[in-house]
């Protein structure tokens, strides 16, 4: 595993040093002050949240402790927001600021099929949107004067569409926003013409695609881009074997962040430490002075124990327009308390394994997350991409087909090597999920739409229930 040097962001920023060196008591005091201000404002200006505070016993929006806040303030979820928006379009009654203060719109992507949440943001929120991307990227190596490649589609009405542009600008770097408007081959041509690239932001899946395409052209990234000092991924899980290969190919440390529309950017990142901790998975340290993140058992809503997986429930501490207060994200993460995070007082979650509770597949009695299969498949460097399908076979039995494409830079594998690879992938999936799946080879051309957020799994089981 490569662990190249990353310029110490804490040495370069007294602000960051202050955040790193504060006591847990001081951090929680800051959180409480911000929660109190948030609740007082929303009690005055938001019917949605006023009703919830009153129902939970926070009369007048008064909060006297964080403990009381998490016990009394009811949670909200996507369905609550969509119902509120339907009743009071377009922003619902949770906006929390005057309508004429809204200068920017963020919407969720709608991939869940339930509908899109809409968030109205103020001028200050737009700066914070940029800052909440700039903060993790600065810690991950981005600096003034750098050339940065943003591989996430820019613009539109998503948080990820605007945050990167604002972030790169306020760091003082030069941003090339190539996501969604340029083929991978054209991106590579551009990168080679830039006289140095220092930072790349991409989804996990696209970092894979870009690396694979470079290798297929016979280009070794670390040789072609020797000045690279920051690779930053988000959105999808990955195996550590893959991360090690990415670091080796690029000669650069890989960093990861956890972000969302609800967080108005990133809520935590690996800072400068990378995605490894020793030989194991690294930590995403949470920016707890910007957002409160509870990690709870989704059934009991009690905090999970250290090392357990729970649902992240978030509260914005610095957002003006459409803030979320104890919002159930549906995102699943392994909780690492600050005392076990190896320095500092920021709670953390494990890298590379963030999933969705609603993505969990029940297969022959086993709870299987796509990230488990991602880890098994992409531990094989010869694999370029894959997709899976659940369907009902003869006799009503659940069948699972995994279609694997060989990476272009391994296209010369012979028949015997391909068979061995497919067998190894099958064994690895069984080891991680306890389920035997059928693994077959598919042409790489089947996967051309997999660029930003890969949705690799389809569940067609109900279609097989025909009489």
């Amino acid at each position, binding site marked *: 595993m490569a662990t190249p040097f990353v310029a110490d*962001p804490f040495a*370069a*920023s*007294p*602000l*960051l040093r202050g955040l790193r060196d504060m006591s847990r008591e001081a951090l929680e005091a800051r959180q409480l002050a911000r929660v109190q201000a948030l609740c007082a404002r929303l009690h005055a200006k938001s019917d949605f949240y006023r009703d919830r505070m009153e129902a939970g016993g926070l009369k007048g929006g008064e909060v006297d402790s964080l403990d009381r806040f998490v016990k009394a303030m009811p949670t909200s979820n996507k369905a609550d927001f969509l119902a509120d928006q339907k009743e009071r379009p377009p922003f619902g009654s949770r906006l929390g600021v005057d309508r004429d203060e809204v200068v920017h719109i963020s919407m969720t992507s709608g991939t869940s099929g339930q509908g899109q949440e809409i968030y109205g943001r103020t001028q200050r929120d737009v*700066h914070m949107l940029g*800052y909440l991307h*700039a*903060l993790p990227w*600065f810690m991950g190596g981005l*600096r*003034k004067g750098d050339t940065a490649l943003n591989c996430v589609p820019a613009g539109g009405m998503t948080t990820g569409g605007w945050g990167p542009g604002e972030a790169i*600008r*306020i*760091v*003082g*770097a030069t941003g090339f926003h190539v996501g969604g408007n340029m083929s991978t081959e054209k991106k590579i041509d551009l990168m080679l013409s830039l006289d140095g690239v220092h930072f790349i932001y991409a989804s996990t899946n696209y970092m894979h695609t870009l690396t694979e395409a470079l290798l297929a052209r016979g280009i070794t990234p670390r040789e072609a881009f020797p000045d690279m000092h920051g690779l930053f991924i988000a959105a999808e899980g990955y195996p550590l074997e893959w991360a090690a290969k990415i670091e080796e190919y690029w000669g650069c440390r890989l960093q990861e962040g956890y972000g969302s529309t609800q967080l108005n950017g990133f809520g935590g990142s690996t800072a400068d430490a990378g995605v490894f901790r020793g030989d194991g998975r690294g930590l995403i340290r949470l920016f707890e002075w910007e957002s409160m993140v509870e990690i709870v058992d989704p059934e009991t809503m009690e905090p999970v124990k250290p090392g357990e997986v729970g649902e992240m429930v978030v509260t914005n501490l610095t957002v003006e327009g459409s803030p979320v207060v104890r919002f159930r994200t549906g995102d699943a993460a392994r909780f690492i308390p600050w005392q076990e995070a190896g320095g500092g007082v920021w709670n953390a979650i494990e890298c590379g394994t963030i999933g969705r509770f609603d993505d969990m597949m029940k297969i022959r009695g086993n709870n299987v997350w796509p990230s488990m299969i991602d880890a098994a498949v992409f531990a094989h460097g010869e694999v370029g991409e894959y997709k899976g399908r659940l369907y009902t076979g003869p006799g009503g039995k659940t069948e699972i087909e995994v279609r694997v494409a060989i990476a272009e830079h391994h296209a010369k594998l012979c028949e015997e090597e391909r068979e061995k690879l497919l067998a190894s992938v099958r064994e690895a999936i069984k080891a991680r999920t306890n389920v035997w799946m059928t693994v077959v080879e598919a042409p790489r051309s089947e996967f051309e739409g997999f660029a930003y957020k890969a949705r690799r799994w389809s569940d067609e089981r109900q279609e097989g229930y025909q009489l």
Partner: protein
Amino acid sequence: MTENPVTPARDEDALLAQMLEMAEQLAATDDALLAGQYDYLRARIAALMEIRSGAGLS
């Protein structure tokens, strides 16, 4: 009540000039995380001054 001897337009110019001077001081910070943000603030003030000068207001 004493009448303000400075016209509103001149007052805005003076405020912007003061803000620019302060933003330039901020942009000289030794905090690399904030330096770009202060420079962004300085540039927005400078742009507003430029916009006003184009209309002959300053």
